[in-house]
């Protein structure tokens, strides 16, 4: 059986920016074959020039990405993906506005061909305080956010500085479990959500880190009419490379990297486990996993943070890696 396909679930209520995020990811796939499963095609504003063809409920896009509508049968759509000529590199499932993404994740856990990498939930910063307590739908929105491994606090450009401070304070008070990233027009560094081709072996570390940060800034510039306010409110993503040459307990490290207090939103790479085997560590927000590493990789982790002041030294200190002695 081939390796399980990585899946990221994108949740959030109507108008929180899910389809905008999906469009953003598709435009920055850079050769990575993404498969996007969406509830319906109706409101997905895919750029017309990206569309190469449509067959039934599957739209093929240039660059090898596809987009499928799943109606009310997600498991059937996932099955269809496995029957495609070439398997996608990464799958995104757009949950419907009222769906609980955690429940989708649970159902996914029953299908061994797929592996849940993370649940990303978007929140409309202009309304989240009121909508999460609204009549009828409030508890659904609150449950969606509780299900999140990583929250994207979106539409921050529409807030005044005072409002911005208030919503950040509210998030701190209410959603302590998962980290969040600040966003404008659903823009986040795509590398937070899927792996760029060049990172597979983690060799070009220094240049990869630099370009990852640069590309995030570019995203904002190309996707929006950039104003200085956008730069103030949207997260700037910073890559940190972590080299650990000694054997460590991979589970402990992964759990530490996924701890909100560590300050990361994403980590991916390979470490030497205590039993000398090579392990893959995968972190999206608070969710982490440790699996056997594929052959031919060397150790090293790429971590992504939204705090520009976060340094390798601080991550090492938080994870107790200093005690291992110099790398």
């Amino acid at each position, binding site marked *: 059986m081939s390796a399980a396909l990585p899946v990221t679930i994108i949740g959030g*209520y*109507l*108008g929180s920016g899910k389809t905008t995020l999906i469009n953003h990811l598709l435009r920055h796939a850079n050769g990575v074959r993404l498969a996007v499963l969406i*509830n*319906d095609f*109706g*409101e997905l504003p895919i750029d017309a020039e990206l569309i190469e063809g449509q067959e039934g409920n599957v739209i093929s896009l240039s660059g090898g990405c596809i987009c499928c*509508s*799943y*109606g*009310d*049968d*997600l*498991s*059937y759509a996932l*099955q269809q993906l496995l029957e495609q000529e070439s398997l996608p590199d990464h799958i995104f499932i757009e949950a419907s*506005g*009222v769906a*609980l993404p955690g*429940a*989708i994740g*649970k*159902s996914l*856990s*029953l*299908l*061994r061909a797929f592996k849940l990498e993370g649940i990303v939930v978007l929140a409309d910063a202009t309304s989240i305080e009121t909508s999460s307590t609204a009549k*009828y*739908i409030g*508890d*659904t929105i609150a449950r969606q956010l509780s299900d999140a491994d990583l929250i994207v606090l979106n539409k921050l450009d529409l807030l005044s500085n005072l409002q911005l401070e208030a919503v950040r304070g509210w998030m701190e008070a209410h959603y302590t479990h998962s980290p969040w990233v600040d966003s404008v027009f659903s823009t986040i560094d795509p590398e937070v959500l899927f792996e760029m081709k060049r990172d597979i072996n983690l060799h070009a570390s220094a240049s990869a880190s630099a370009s990852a940060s640069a590309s995030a800034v570019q995203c904002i510039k190309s996707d929006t009419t950039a104003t200085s306010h956008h730069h103030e409110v949207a997260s700037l993503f910073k890559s940190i490379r972590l080299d650990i040459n000694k054997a460590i307990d991979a589970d402990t490290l992964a759990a530490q990297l996924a701890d909100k207090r560590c300050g990361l939103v994403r980590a991916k790479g390979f470490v030497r486990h205590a039993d000398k085997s090579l392990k893959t560590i995968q972190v999206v927000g608070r969710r982490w996993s440790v699996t056997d590493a594929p052959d031919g990789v060397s150790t090293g982790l790429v971590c992504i943070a939204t705090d520009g002041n976060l340094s390798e030294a601080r991550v090492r200190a938080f994870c107790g890696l200093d005690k291992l002695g110099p790398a």
Partner: protein
Amino acid sequence: MTTIYSAKKIITMNPTRPTVSHVAVRDGRIVGAGSLTELAGFGDYTLDERFTDKVLMPGLVEGHCHTVEGKWWRYVYCGFHDRMDPHGKVWSGLASIDQVIERLMEQEVTLVDPAEPLTGWAIDPIYYSDRKITRQQLDRVSTTRPIGIMHASGHIMSVNSKALEMADYLRTGIEHEGVPLGDDGLPTGELKGPDVMRPVGQKAGFSDNMLEFDEPGLIDFARLCVRAGVTTATDLAAELSEATVDMGIRVTDADNFPVRIMSLRFHHGVTPNELIEHVKILREQSTDRFRLGKIKVVADGSIQGFSARMNWPGYFNGAPNGLWYIAPEQMLAIYEMALEFDIQVHTHTNGDEATDLVLETLEAALKKHPTNHHRFTIQHGQLINGAQYRRLAKLNMCVNHFANHHFYWGDEHYNLTVGPERAERMNACRTALDNGVPLAIHSDAPITPLSPLFTAWCAVNRITSSGRVQGEHEKITVDEALYAITLGAAYTLDLDREIGSIEAGKHADFAVLEDDPTAVAADKLKDVSVWGTVQAGRVFSASDI
């Protein structure tokens, strides 16, 4: 040429002459109802006396069922209660899990291909002592072919080890509330919820789209209608792809197709705009026997699945509140456009919070597009309370209650889901009528059997399967119940000008009965036997359908 039928009694639902002895029919429509002398005034006629010892009433209207029942009869019937199949065979109810196993074994030996799945439906383990059926029990039937049985509620499936293995579920480490585990850490074989059931169900012989009818299934469904006295039935939630519509029109157009089907477009999987555009196209394709152009919206889940949206204090057993299947904004968009383009919407609610949302949303939509002829209908509405009926009446809404639920799951609701007080006012038909809310009652077949006379019996007697009367106050009279399964249901489908009563100008749709339902004791209403139907003047006998 006019045919005049004589009958022992004709119940018309026309208050000016509630019962008559003769009805005159020409070109599939009713010329008049009255005495032979009166009807002779229309001119030449042939007197047809085949119903002289029968009782006629307006063709029964099932306002909430799914034609897919015809397809499900190709699976093995495993229910607790006796049930008649499309060919008139009565499958005896199974009193124990051993009897279930025995029936499955009987069917298993008839399968030739060793890999062919064995598929069953309608099992309801709440009636059995241990309330569960395990994969080990089903393994007694076969360990080599996949077996899957859909529960009566439609929310749970029981499967054997082979089916679990084929779907890669037979392993330790599964963590999912829909997949209970045994002491061995492996799934017990009980699967709860559609997301969990589907991957295994496909291996166990259930088709991908469990709600979509197929051609032989539609024909078998029509047979069930004739046996139940039904001349108009709904197909309450369909995707209605082009191919399905073409097939539906073709099949129902056959001279011997005995029932009018009204198929509603389900809201799921498309945006409100796409939904409205699709329904506008469907409306133009509508034929006499395949009616299209209405919408079904599903607001919440089910009460026994604990997925209905409940107002405070919520579920009796403390289960968390249920799920929304549509966002309020989407519901509003659908309602507004539907009112604008004169499209009728039927909305499924079970919990009282979901009903509140429908009321509030329609009230807002009506402010934008005021009309007093919309006939928006709440389907199920099982927990509608007094204040909500008063608001329904004010908004000119109709309700179609799930009366059969009292009998099949009334005890569950009393003991587990909503508790005694609210269980006694579930499907509150009396309060609906007292507030002037137009009322229909339904079976939701295949969830419970298609039989409007049985449904009427449920609403009149409110007896649960354990034999208790649950909610004395909410009983309705036999006359009211018979109205609800004819003109009442026709009204909710906006067909009351065409069907629902036996009077001049309407379609010649009759239920042909062996007994008079207004003369038998109220607790015998379900036992009134059906000879067959007349649909648009065509006679269909249950004995040779």
